[in-house]
Each structure stands twice: as C-alpha cells, then as structure tokens.
C-alpha cells in the first residue's frame, strides 16, 4: 500500500492542462513547410507514397517518414505543429510556401457539443493508430474531459473512427458496423492508411469501396495520428475552443 502512495505521489498531476495548446517535442514531424522552389518530382523520388504534386504535399498520403526532409532539407521541413486535420480531403494538401492548412469549417450539430461518442473500427491497421486512439483516453490526454467517449457498441455511437487501409476481409464487417450506428452518424478517418490507403494503397489485399459510398467529415493525418492531433481535430468540429 505504501508503495502505491509513493508511486501516486511521484506521479503527481500528469494530465496535459490544455491539449489544444500543448507544447510538442521539436523532434515531432508535424505540419510540413514546403519551399516555394520545391521540385515535386525530386521529392517523389524518395517518397514511399508519392505524396507530392505541383499543388504541394498531400498529408493524406504522407506517412511522415522524413525521407524527403533528410534528403532535401531545403525543400521541405516538418514543423512540430500537430494540428493538421481537415474536413475536406482536398484541403489536406499543404501548398508550397504555406504555413497552415485551410481552417476546419465543418461543425457538428449543437447536440453533440458536449457529448460525442465514437466507435473505432480497425480495418487492416498496424495497431499503432489504434494504440494512439486508446491513448487519447489515458490520464495524459484525457479526451473524456470534453465529453468525448470511445464506446464499445456502434448502437451507442455518434461517429465511426476508421483506422487502417480497409483490408478486403474487413470490408463487410466495417460496412455492417457503420450501418449499426444510428443516424445522424459521422465518419472520421485517422491515419494515412485510412485516408488514402497509405503505404498499402497499391496492395490487392485491400478494398476501399466503402469510402466511395460514404463521405468522411474529418481527416486526421499521421502515421500513426498523434493523440494531440486526434484530440484537437475532434474538439474543433465539436466547436470547443
């Protein structure tokens, strides 16, 4: 018992006071800043997901491996800004010279402002996104302080947060879980795999037809998406400042 008190005492108070304004380790690869003179073909040469185009860097494809930054440090630099979600797939493209993404305009209806329940479906994910999503609930990130709850049953959920590129085997289970969520329901995609297929986009073992039928309201990039990215993105669509 005494050990537990000691551990509790040393633990102190570890909750991040305000996850929306938290400081981030400078080593974290967040929002990339591209030089106006960047050569997207050169960058694509080292990019495992061909995330670059004339328009800039597609954060939905980027796995933040840092290969481009290590090879061409003058063309691209990853800042430690973890706020990099969007409500529109097209708005995830970071233009050369820009230092932020277009703001998230989508807002949930007012009844979800203080209570928002989410059901996760992992469909071919590597378990990193799932662990980060679970970490959102721990004492550090404590997502439940905003009334956000990760629930077990789709019947209790307002939204589905998808992780993983959707393996063929999971396609029908995902669709069934989605159908079991009462309307109005919202779809959130977390991680490069869920948003674009990520590194598995070309694999014949994945089936992304589900996303042709249903539109997501929130895209959270990352490989995996960092808990702070997840918390800040979801609170934004809830209208929490």
């Amino acid at each position, binding site marked *: *018992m*005494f*050990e*537990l008190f*000691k*551990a*509790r005492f*040393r*633990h102190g108070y*570890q909750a991040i006071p305000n996850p929306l304004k938290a400081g981030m*380790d400078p*080593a*974290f*690869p967040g929002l990339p800043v591209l030089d106006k003179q960047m050569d997207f073909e050169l960058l694509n040469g080292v990019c*495992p997901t061909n995330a670059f185009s004339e328009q800039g860097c597609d954060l939905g494809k980027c*796995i*933040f*491996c*840092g290969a481009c930054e290590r090879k061409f440090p003058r063309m691209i630099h*990853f800042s430690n800004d973890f706020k990099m979600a969007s409500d529109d797939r097209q708005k995830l493209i970071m233009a050369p010279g820009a230092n932020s993404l277009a703001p998230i305009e989508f807002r949930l209806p007012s009844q979800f402002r203080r209570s928002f329940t989410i059901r*996760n*479906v*992992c*469909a*071919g*994910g*590597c*378990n*990193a*996104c*799932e*662990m*980060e*999503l*679970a*970490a959102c609930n*721990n*004492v*550090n990130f404590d997502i439940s302080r905003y009334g956000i709850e*990760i629930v*077990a*049953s789709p019947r209790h959920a307002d939204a589905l947060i998808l992780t*993983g590129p959707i*393996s*063929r*085997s*999971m396609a*029908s*289970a*995902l669709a069934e879980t989605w159908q079991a969520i009462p309307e109005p329901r919202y779809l959130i995609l977390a991680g490069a795999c869920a948003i674009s297929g990520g*590194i*598995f986009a*070309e*694999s*014949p*073992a*994945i089936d992304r037809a589900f996303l042709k039928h249903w539109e997501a309201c929130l895209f959270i990039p990352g*490989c*995996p998406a*960092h808990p702070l990215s997840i918390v800040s993105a979801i609170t934004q669509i809830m209208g929490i400042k």
Partner: protein
Amino acid sequence: MLLPMLMTPVVYPELDTFLKWIRESLSRGFQPFAFFGTCEAFIYCLMGKAGELELACCPFPPAGRYPSLSIDFPAFQIFERELFEEYGIVPIRHPWLKSVRHPVNTQPAIEDYPFLASESPLIHEVGVGPVHAGVIEPGHFRFLMRGEIVEHLEIQLGWQHRGICAMLCDGALAQKMYIAESIAGDSVIAHGTAFCGIVECLSGTEARAKDIRTLLLEMERVAMHLSTLSALAGDVAYIMSQNLFAAIRTTVINSTLSICGSRFGKRALCPGGVNYALTQDLIEALKTKMKYCALQIQNTAEAMFASTSLLSRFDDTGKVSTEDVIRYGFTGISAKASGVPIDSRVDFPNWQYPAFLVQTESTGDVFARAHLRYVEAMQSLDIIQELLKRIDPQSPICTETASFSPNQIAVSIVEGARGRVLHIAKSKDESTALWYKIYDPSMVNWLALSLAVQDEQVSDFPLCNKSFDLSYCGSDL
C-alpha cells in the same frame, strides 16, 4: 552464432529424406522456427534451438500431398496450414486443416470458414468478432461453452491481411523500410531491426549504431510490457495501476519520440544503421527519464502484486504447462512464464548485449505472465542505462548498403516484446527479394491462448487474452 546471417540450405531431392531429417532434428531438441513453401516450388524448413540453426529444403511433393507432421509434432500445425493455404499442398491427416489468413483470390471467403462444432445439447457456441468491443484489432473467437465454462476456443485470424510479404518482393527491398515498420505498429523496432538485418546480410553490409538500435528495442519492450500491465490491471478493475502504468508508458514512448520523432519508433531505423543520432543532452535527459520510470514501475508493481483481490484473479488463471510450451513451440513471454528460458537476445545475439540473465516464472498462469513483464521491464531499464553510458554521440550512425548477391538466403532473428521475430528471405537479383517470409511470435502463440482458456470461465477470457497480448496484424501480415 551471430545473426543475421546467410544460410545455405541442405537440398533433399526426396520428400521422405526431408521429413526424416525434420524428425531427426526434432529428436535432437530442435524446434521448427519456420516451415513454408516458396514460389520456386520448394518447401523450406528452418529448425532451431539455442545458438543453433539448420535449414533444409525439398521440392513440392509431386502429388501435392505428404503425411502431416502435426500429428506427431503439433508445433507444425500452423505452418502446415499456411503451406496448404498458399500453395494448396495437403498435409494428409492434419488434425484441423483450414486457412490461416485470407490471401487474395482464395475461396471460400473468410466469413465462410468452418469452425469446430458440437452436436451435444450441453454445448452452446459464442462467437466474438471480428469487430471487438474496444479499440483493438479485428479477429474472430469462437467459443464452445458448457454453461459458463470454455470447452474449446477456436481463433480465426486473417482480417488484417494486407499482403505484406508480396509487397516486400515488389521492387527494391532496401526501399521497403516503411513496410517493415508497419508489420506490427507496436513492434516497429523488432520487425524493423529484423528487416534491416536481412537487407544488410544480403548486401554484406556491416550495420552502424547497433547500440542505438538496441536502446530503441529495449524501450519498445518496456513500453509494450507497461501497456500490457496497464490493461491487465484495468481488466480486474485495479484502476490505480492501470492509470499509473499507462502514464509511465507515455513517458517511455515520448522518449522514443524525442529520439526519432515517432512514439512507436517509426522513422528511426534504416538499412545500414539508424536515421537519427543521439546528442549528449538527449542521452542525459533519457538517463533521468528512464531512472524515473524504473522507480515508478517498481512502486506501482510492488503495490499491485501485493493486492490480494488482484492476485485472486491472476493466480492459477489461464495456465499453460511447460510440456505444452515445448510441444507447440511457443516463444517469448508465453514460454518464459512457463519456465522455458528461451530468449533470442541470448540464444541468437544480433550484437553484444549488456550481460543479463533470462528471467522466467514457473507457474505459467496470468500472474506469471504479468509478473514476468514487470521483471523484464525493470531488466530492460537496466540494459537501457548501460547502453546510454556506452553510446557515443559522435560515432557514425549509418552506412550505405551495397547491392545484393543473388540467390542467397538470409535469416534474421530479433527478440521482440512478444518473443522471437523471425525474417527469412532469398535474394533474386542485385536489389529484389524472390521471397520474403515473416514470422511474428504471435502466429504460433495464439494457440497458447486457446489452451489457456480451456476449462476456465469465459469471464476470464479478456484477462487471459491480455496476459498474452498477441498481435493480430503481425500474424495476418
């Protein structure tokens, strides 16, 4: 024996002599580490025991059938099923021949796989998954129940299959680091190091910064053990430990982030070495943080393992016997908790580890697996401090890998948090692999969970499941 290394298989032209060799090496105390078919229409078998490996192969049997090894040696059961699934080769009289995963273009669909059933009116079935009531990976569990007691548990995986092995063979292997990092996102360093070992071995490159790799691997082990301990405490509603362990894990994985930018160690490794060096300031900061973690873990764990209400759930629950560990070839925590001291860090060291003794428990129950995780985490923190003293911030961190020598087979083994992570591959030409096989310890260890819950109350299933903490994506690939 220093791994990774190139191996030349003994070629048996006849199946009979091949099978005889397997039986003979089993009698000498070897265990099957890998048994698989390849696109060259050969069956390969890698047998191993502490410090020794033997590799042999033989052409596919002409009739596509051979007498199953699993009847006498159940450790082969999952390998024979995989061989059947991938190449249609039938092990005659295999006790339960069905697909392991659900690879592309195979029938039936995964939803239509058969399950062991019972006609008895006393037995009812409970199916769970693939979508589970939590933030976890998909898998299907089918229980045959007698009242509240589990008679039989059949685990069907494959839902996470992404075709990793095929992707690794498509294009230059040295460029596939990011795929190796996504085999199992919670064992990035274990699988990543094993992959780097294959590339370095095939290209004859001596890797740099092995101490940094070891540091990351041990940090991953601590983080994984803490995550399991936290979840185990949560499963028996011991909330304080659940939260404290989760918070310590945050400190550990945030330290990994301060090294490489990812909490899971993605981006850290590259064939030839590592991508990011450690500065002296960072080394000092890590020393302090890891010291804090050791103190916190010790206090939290000592209190937890003194709680009688918690012990009444952990003790004698989900037992795996020593005989079964050997019989089925389980590895990692699942083996060590039942008194079998196998650990690749000692048996097949990739480099010079700081000296340590393999820790074991004897009871093989949930308590043993939980307590061993605590002991191993503390031991890893000692190793980490040792490594932090050794690491020289000035030493080079990476070297270019050369081109491959064609038609070579490389074997790479790393002790991940779950046990033996084994990669084996054959080079095709200067840069690509002809075939690439991955064995996560989970693949063989899932059967340990099935055995552990037999005759237990179904309510103890989550606890048993968590005590093994196996990977779905690691075995589904």
